């Protein structure tokens, strides 16, 4: 009802522009010369004459039409019949196909030795398998279940890890999976690190962690690590540890001159799905089609539940939202905006699934130079932040204020930064007063944000941060922006005073978050040996309480130092047709498509 009103308004506005300008000029013409009126009259009369003649023609035409009507109707009838049959067959097909809309796109490749982007990993998870994987609906992300490995045990010093492999698993081409494949996969990943510095194994430092991989038996394999590493299972569960078939994933470097840097080899995997179609235009995906893998080791227990998954790619979230709304797609996952999600939540024709998030954003300070080379300034700014109002305004409450770099639900999560409070202006003022900053002599710095949509609504966030900081009365912020690549360049060149950055977990473990406080690649120029030591201790123990204590200590130091200030943790959601079931949005942020099915 009230939509119609809006339509009316918009249409009227448009017509308004055109007509008004037309009439305007016309009015002035008539003013300047009246004779045009006579023209109009004459043209009008002639038009009327034409009209009458055309009417006559129309009559004759209609007569002819009437004659042909019978044939028309017959033709129509059997056409409808044909269409009906088509629809029936389509309906039958539909039940075993799910169409997924997304704004993501594979950045570059599906090769575990290189891929390091969310969607690349998402697709790989559907088509590949790792030794272990995180159980669906895990809350901590720390409970692992066997995948290609049936069982495992670790030496007390956390240096040697033995795995017993699942038997009679076959690759698509019939090769039987065994220990050699495991060794080959990891050796290859490590071997390729130098030539693919941007690849995931490089990022996760496989070469530093893994000393060597030994084949104990056809179905037994041993990893020997360089240092005790409690989160090793996490590493093994991530996509970079996917097992590949050497015949399709050769050791030849993904080299820069041979042309195809993608080097994606869909047949190399043993996952629940095959990659049957992958079309790219320019360097973004147009269509990805997954077909069920009949040889999947878990096929017996009915996985994957849906035969075909088809991905469709949209450039912006609103188009995606409209598509799911119009029923063009069965499921929209990744980058339905909070606004749209909340709208759709009350729409009976779709279902919104809410899940826990693990994506965090945080504020970095450039400590090479003033003002942020002084700890107190950093603390003062951190205290002036207003996380909750930002989350309320920008994310409409669909993300939560974060007071520790480790997201809630995960081992070692604390509320450490609550000490400084939100919009704690009295504290900020007093701190800055010590340094001679006040209403007249404000603390001024540049706050940078990424402007090409790499992070969710980063511009809006920045605006809100600026507002909150300046509300203290003693801070004045200049907003600066750069597109993703330039942003990274600026970061490496250390020219940004303060900048908002984000982190997606490679594997769900505090070990993959805590180091962010002093991560060298953030170029904050912050070092802290003690924190590093604590971090290594945490790696070296499996005792969960001990580990969480250690991470808590790291957090507490971080609050004093404020080298990196956690801002918020996002929550995740997916939108589907009501008929879709089996969506699992747990802390791992993985969408496991083999669990999804259409319920009648």
């Amino acid at each position: 009802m009230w939509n119609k009103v809006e339509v009316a308004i918009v249409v009227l506005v448009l017509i308004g522009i055109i007509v008004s300008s037309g009439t305007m000029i016309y009015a002035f013409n008539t003013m300047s010369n009246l004779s045009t009126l006579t023209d109009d009259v004459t043209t009008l009369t002639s038009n009327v004459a034409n009209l009458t003649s055309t009417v006559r023609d129309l009559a004759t035409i209609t007569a002819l039409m009437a004659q042909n009507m019978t044939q028309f109707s017959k033709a129509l009838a059997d056409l409808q019949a044909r269409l009906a049959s088509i629809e029936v067959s389509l309906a039958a097909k539909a039940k075993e196909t799910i169409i997924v809309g997304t704004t993501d796109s594979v950045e570059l490749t599906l090769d575990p030795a290189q891929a390091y982007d969310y969607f690349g990993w998402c697709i790989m998870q559907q088509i590949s398998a790792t030794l272990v994987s995180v159980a669906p609906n895990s809350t901590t992300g720390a409970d692992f279940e066997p995948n290609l490995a049936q069982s495992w045990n670790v030496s007390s010093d956390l240096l040697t890890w033995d795995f017993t492999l699942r038997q009679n698993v076959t690759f698509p081409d019939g090769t039987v999976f065994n220990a050699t494949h495991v060794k080959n996969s990891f050796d290859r990943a490590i071997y390729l690190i130098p030539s693919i510095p941007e690849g995931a194994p490089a990022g996760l430092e496989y070469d530093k962690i893994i000393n060597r991989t030994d084949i104990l038996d056809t179905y037994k394999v041993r990893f020997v690590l360089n240092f005790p590493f409690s989160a090793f299972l996490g590493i093994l569960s991530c996509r970079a540890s996917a097992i590949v078939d050497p015949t399709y994933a050769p050791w030849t470097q993904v080299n820069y001159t041979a042309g195809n840097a993608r080097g994606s080899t869909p047949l190399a995997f043993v996952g629940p799905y095959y990659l049957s179609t992958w079309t790219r235009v320019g360097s973004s995906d147009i269509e990805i089609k997954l077909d069920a893998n009949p040889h999947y080791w878990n096929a017996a227990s009915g996985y994957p539940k849906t035969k075909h998954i088809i991905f469709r790619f949209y450039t912006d979230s609103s188009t995606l939202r409209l598509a799911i709304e119009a029923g063009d797609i069965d499921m929209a996952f990744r980058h339905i905006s909070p606004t749209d999600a909340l709208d759709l939540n009350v729409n009976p024709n779709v279902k919104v699934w809410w899940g826990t998030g693990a994506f965090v954003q945080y504020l970095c300070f450039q400590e090479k130079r003033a003002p942020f080379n002084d700890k107190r300034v950093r603390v003062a700014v951190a205290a002036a932040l207003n996380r909750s109002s930002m989350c309320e305004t920008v994310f409409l409450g669909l993300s939560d204020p974060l007071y520790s770099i480790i997201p809630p639900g995960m081992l070692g999560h604390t509320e450490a930064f609550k000490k400084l409070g939100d919009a704690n202006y009295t504290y900020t003022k007093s701190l800055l007063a010590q340094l001679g900053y006040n209403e007249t002599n404000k603390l001024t710095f540049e706050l940078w944000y990424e402007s090409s949509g790499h992070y969710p609504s980063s511009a809006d966030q920045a605006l809100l941060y600026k507002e909150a900081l300046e509300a203290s009365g003693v801070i004045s912020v200049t907003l600066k922006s750069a597109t993703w690549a330039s942003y990274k360049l600026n970061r490496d060149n250390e020219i940004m005073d303060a900048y908002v950055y984000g982190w997606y977990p490679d594997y769900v473990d505090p070990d993959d978050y805590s180091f962010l406080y002093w991560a060298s690649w953030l170029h904050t120029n912050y070092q802290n040996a003690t924190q590093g030591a604590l971090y290594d201790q945490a790696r070296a123990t499996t005792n969960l309480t001990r580990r969480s204590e250690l991470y808590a200590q790291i957090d507490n130091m971080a609050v004093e130092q404020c080298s990196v200030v956690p801002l918020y943790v996002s929550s995740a959601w997916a939108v589907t047709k009501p008929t879709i079931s089996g969506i699992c949005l747990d802390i791992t942020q993985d969408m496991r498509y083999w669990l999804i099915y259409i319920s009648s």
Partner: protein
Amino acid sequence: MGLRSYVITRVLLTIPTLLLLLTMVFLVMRVLPGDPVALHFEKRADPEQMEQMRRLLGMDKPLWAQYFDYISGLVDINYFSAHGYPNLGRSMQSFEEVGGQVFSAFPATLELAIYSMIIASAMGILLGVIASKSYNSFLDHLIRGFGTVTYAVPVFFLGIILQLIFGVYLHWLPTGLRINPSVTPPPTITGLYTVDSLLQGNFVTFFESLRALILPSLTLGFILSGIFIRLTRTNMLETLHLDFVTAAKARGLKESTVTYDYALRNAFLPILTMMGLQFAMLLGGAILTETTFSWPGLGRYIVQRINFRDYTAIQGAVVMFGLFVALVSLIVDILYAYFDPRIRL
């Protein structure tokens, strides 16, 4: 001098223009801030690897040498025959062949451009003729007003409004993509969905791709039609008052003959040239339209590459645009010569 020799000279004349164009693009892309290679190495900036990459991208050479590579790569016929696309260098982000990416993205843009050009010229010329025939009447002023307004509307705003009305509220037409997601796109033959689907003989795909084309091409068409209206109108008015038109009337020829065979046919030549020029503007508008309608074309490619600061890719795409425009203007000039006997003197 006959038509043939004219064509030949015209083609020869295109070459220096092209060369100039390429040079400019090259220079624009090379006088940039920031070391593109440094971008690639995010976490481990290993100087030795960066050196290697410079070598592989040919960026270790002096500028003139790079320029030479760039030009010679473009005209390398063997490469073209081998790959099916010219050598436009490698993407700095992905090291993929820019030529391949650009060529794969181009058909979408071309399809959009063609359809909108058809809409624009059809609408523009028709309205223009009507306006000029009913000179100084209300209709005339209305049409002119419309033309003026179209010139002032940002193309993407019009696109958004059309989306809002026909996509969001009325649900008549899709708001994005080249084809309804539930339909598998036709096999790539020409890359133009409408053509391919017809070649494949699949009418469902054809209609779907046509439906998807309506809004974007209308958007672009509307924006451009204004210029055609104005041009057609002025030229028609001029020719309609030329003596040979009056003379034709004086010989008792029919109104229609005089209007179309005499007036329009003579007014058409400047319109044709304008079409050529407008194609450039149209391609520019296409970038915004593609962004508005999730249209996977060259424009979207550029925008996306910009975010990666992928200079070589942007350069490749820009060159592609340039080549296309040059080609179009060449064709237009030849058509011009074909239609206008006087040129052939």
